[in-house]
Structure formats: structure tokens, C-alpha cells
């Protein structure tokens, strides 16, 4: 229905056609659709999230066995918020609770990758199938990546001396009424939306331009099947782009429409969310460069393999 309204607006009211009409139509349609989905999904996720917090996750991960711990940590990563500014207390707090380093990394990989902004954008732009594939492979990368790091015995590369706590953590209880939860979710959604709506606007704007003006062969030649290094380049390009995920995803959608392969797009988006340069800089205060490099390499390789696998299968 929304499509018809926008079509009517651009064709009949504004009398636009050709490239300009297509670009304007696309811009209005996509921006409003994505804004709507962002607000809805962020609200739902932040409402669910009021039942958990990082302290709760820590108490639940304590004392879990290796592989089970990795899986649980990756799953918790979907629901808990992540801010790279909290990476240090999180990392050290997990170690303090004697949670193995590999399990900690599973959480640290999954949490930013499966963040609500990325999920909402994916859902709005690509539909539920691609979103499910993204989350599924995201979890896999977090579980496998964390498991491997856990096997490498890299505890000695934690530069801070953390005294492991004695005994078990107490169960963390969150007592909130439903009204308080809704209010919290509303405030959180409002804050996030205020931060990112402009990036969505810019992302869709540039996307609309590409959609209307740049010919398909151009994109297909550089990011399509014709370029065997596309996945690799996409992953490297994704690393410095974390804070702009909201602006980048609308662009990726347009690029796939213009012939960029889906695996390449998937790898690129995973690299944008999972490998963040600012997070690495923050972690450098407490972790040896070797450990951070290992973390980036393992996750990077995983993502690249997924991209090629996808391009090959589809």
C-alpha cells in the first residue's frame, strides 16, 4: 500500500519521471519504510532486553563448559546491548568471573554483530530470509571464532592482572513493572533513532542516486561475479565503518540490486558490524596486539569463507 502512495506522489502529484522520478520515488519509499521498521524492531528488542543485562549474562555464563558456553554466549549476544565503550569492563568482568577467554570472545563477537540496528535494517531491506541467514552465520562465526581462540591458550596476552573471584556470582534479578519496561524501551528507541535517522537518510539518498543513475554493469563489474577478490575487498573495507552501519546497509541493498553478489554483500555487512576499528583500539589498552590480531584474523577469515561459500552456492 505504501508503494502505491509513493508512486502516486511521484508520478501524479510531482509529475516526475525518468531517472529523477525513479530516484525520488526510491528515496521516499525506502527512507520511510526503514524508519518505520527501525522504530518497531528497536522497540521490540529493547523491550525484551529489559529482562536481561550484561551482569545477568555474566552470572549465567559462569561455570559453563567450553562449547556450551560458546553457544550460550553467542545467543546472549543477540539480546544484550553492546557499546564498544563498555568492552573493557565487560572483558575484565568476564575474566574475573572465571569465564573462559574463548566464551568471552564468543560474546564479544556476537553482541555487536547481532545488534538491533543491523537486524532491523536487514529485515527492512532484504527480508526475513537474508536476516535469518545473517543471524545464523553470525552466531556460527561467534561460536567457532570464540572456540578457536579458547583453544589457542592466549590468556597470557591479557595485559591486566585480574584476580579471579571466589565462589559463584549471585543470580541477578531485575525487578521492573511492565509499565517501566515499556517506558525504558521507548526512551531507548527514541535515543537510538535520534542518533541514526540521519545516517539512514544519507545512506538511502546515495543509494537512490545509484539506483537512478549508475548503470548495472558498472557495479557488476567491480562487485559482481567478474571480480574474484570482491569478498576480500569488501571485508577489508568494512572494518573502519562500524559506527555508520545505519548508512551503509541501505547502500548495500542497492548494490545487490545492481549486480553485487549476495555473499559479497553478506561478508561486507558482517565485517562492518563484527570488526570494528574503534573497538580494537579500546581493547588494546588491556589486550596484547597479538590477541587482537588473532581475533580479527579468525573472524575475518570466517566471514570471507562465508562470503565465498554463498557466492558459490547461489
Amino acid at each position, binding site marked *: 500500500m505504501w508503494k502505491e502512495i509513493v508512486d502516486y506522489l511521484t508520478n501524479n502529484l510531482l509529475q516526475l519521471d525518468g531517472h529523477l522520478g525513479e530516484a525520488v520515488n526510491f528515496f521516499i519509499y525506502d527512507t520511510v519504510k526503514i524508519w518505520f521498521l527501525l522504530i518497531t524492531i528497536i522497540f521490540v528488542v529493547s523491550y525484551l532486553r529489559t529482562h536481561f*543485562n*550484561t*551482569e545477568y549474562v*555474566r552470572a549465567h555464563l559462569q561455570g559453563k563448559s567450553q562449547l556450551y558456553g560458546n553457544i550460550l554466549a553467542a545467543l546472549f549476544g543477540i539480546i544484550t*546491548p553492546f*557499546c564498544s*565503550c*563498555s568492552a*573493557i*569492563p*565487560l572483558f*575484565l*568482568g*568476564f575474566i*574475573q568471573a572465571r569465564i573462559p577467554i574463548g566464551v568471552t570472545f564468543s560474546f564479544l563477537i556476537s553482541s555487536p554483530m547481532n545488534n538491533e540496528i543491523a537486524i532491523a535494517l536487514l529485515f527492512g531491506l532484504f527480508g526475513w530470509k537474508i536476516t535469518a541467514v545473517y543471524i545464523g552465520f553470525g552466531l556460527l562465526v561467534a561460536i567457532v571464532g570464540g572456540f578457536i581462540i579458547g583453544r589457542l591458550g592466549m590468556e597470557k596476552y591479557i595485559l*591486566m592482572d*585480574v584476580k579471579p573471584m571466589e565462589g559463584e*556470582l549471585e543470580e541477578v534479578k531485575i525487578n521492573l513493572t511492565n509499565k517501566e519496561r515499556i517506558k525504558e524501551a521507548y*526512551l531507548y528507541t527514541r*535515543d537510538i533513532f535520534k542518533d541514526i535517522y540521519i545516517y539512514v537518510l544519507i545512506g538511502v539518498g546515495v543509494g537512490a542516486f545509484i539506483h537512478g543513475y549508475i548503470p548495472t554493469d558498472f557495479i557488476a563489474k567491480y562487485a559482481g561475479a567478474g571480480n574474484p577478490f570482491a569478498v576480500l575487498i569488501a571485508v577489508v573495507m568494512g572494518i573502519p565503518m562500524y559506527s555508520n552501519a545505519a548508512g551503509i546497509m541501505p547502500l548495500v541493498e542497492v548494490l545487490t540490486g545492481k549486480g553485487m553478489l549476495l555473499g559479497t554483500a553478506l561478508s561486507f555487512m558482517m565485517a562492518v558490524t563484527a570488526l570494528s576499528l574503534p573497538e580494537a583500539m579500546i581493547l588494546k589498552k588491556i589486550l596484547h596486539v597479538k590477541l587482537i590480531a588473532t581475533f580479527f584474523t579468525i573472524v575475518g577469515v570466517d566471514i570471507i569463507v562465508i562470503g565465498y561459500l554463498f557466492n558459490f552456492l547461489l
Partner: protein
Amino acid sequence: MKIEILGTGCSKCTALEAVVKEAIAKSGKFIQLEKVDDIMKIMEYQVVSTPGLVIDGKVVSTGKLLSVSEVLSFIA
């Protein structure tokens, strides 16, 4: 009464400090305010998501930027 803000300098932590200052001014009470940025001290409070808000040695909030009225409800 003593309020401590736990945070390692993230933007939310600085924002929370400003909120708490405003709440203290509004409450009209004499309250001691301390910013704790030593990570070891933060961990002693069992807080893993910053900013944390501690009132008289008790953790009342973690990982959230509270509003002035929320902070006021804690200190009232």
C-alpha cells in the same frame, strides 16, 4: 549521602555525570559526588556495563543513561 559514578570515560558516563549533578542541585541536599574511573574499583562493584551508579556503596543502575527524574527518585 555519597554518589559514585562508575565509568571509564565513555560518552554515556560523562552524560550521566551531568545528569546526576543536575539532580543533586534540584534535590537541594548535601550529597558527595565521586567519579570512579579506575577499572579495578569498578569491577569490585561487580559492574560489567558502564556507566554504573552507586549510592552509599550500593549499585542502583548499570549500563544506562538515566534521566534527572530517575536519579532524583533514587536520592529522594
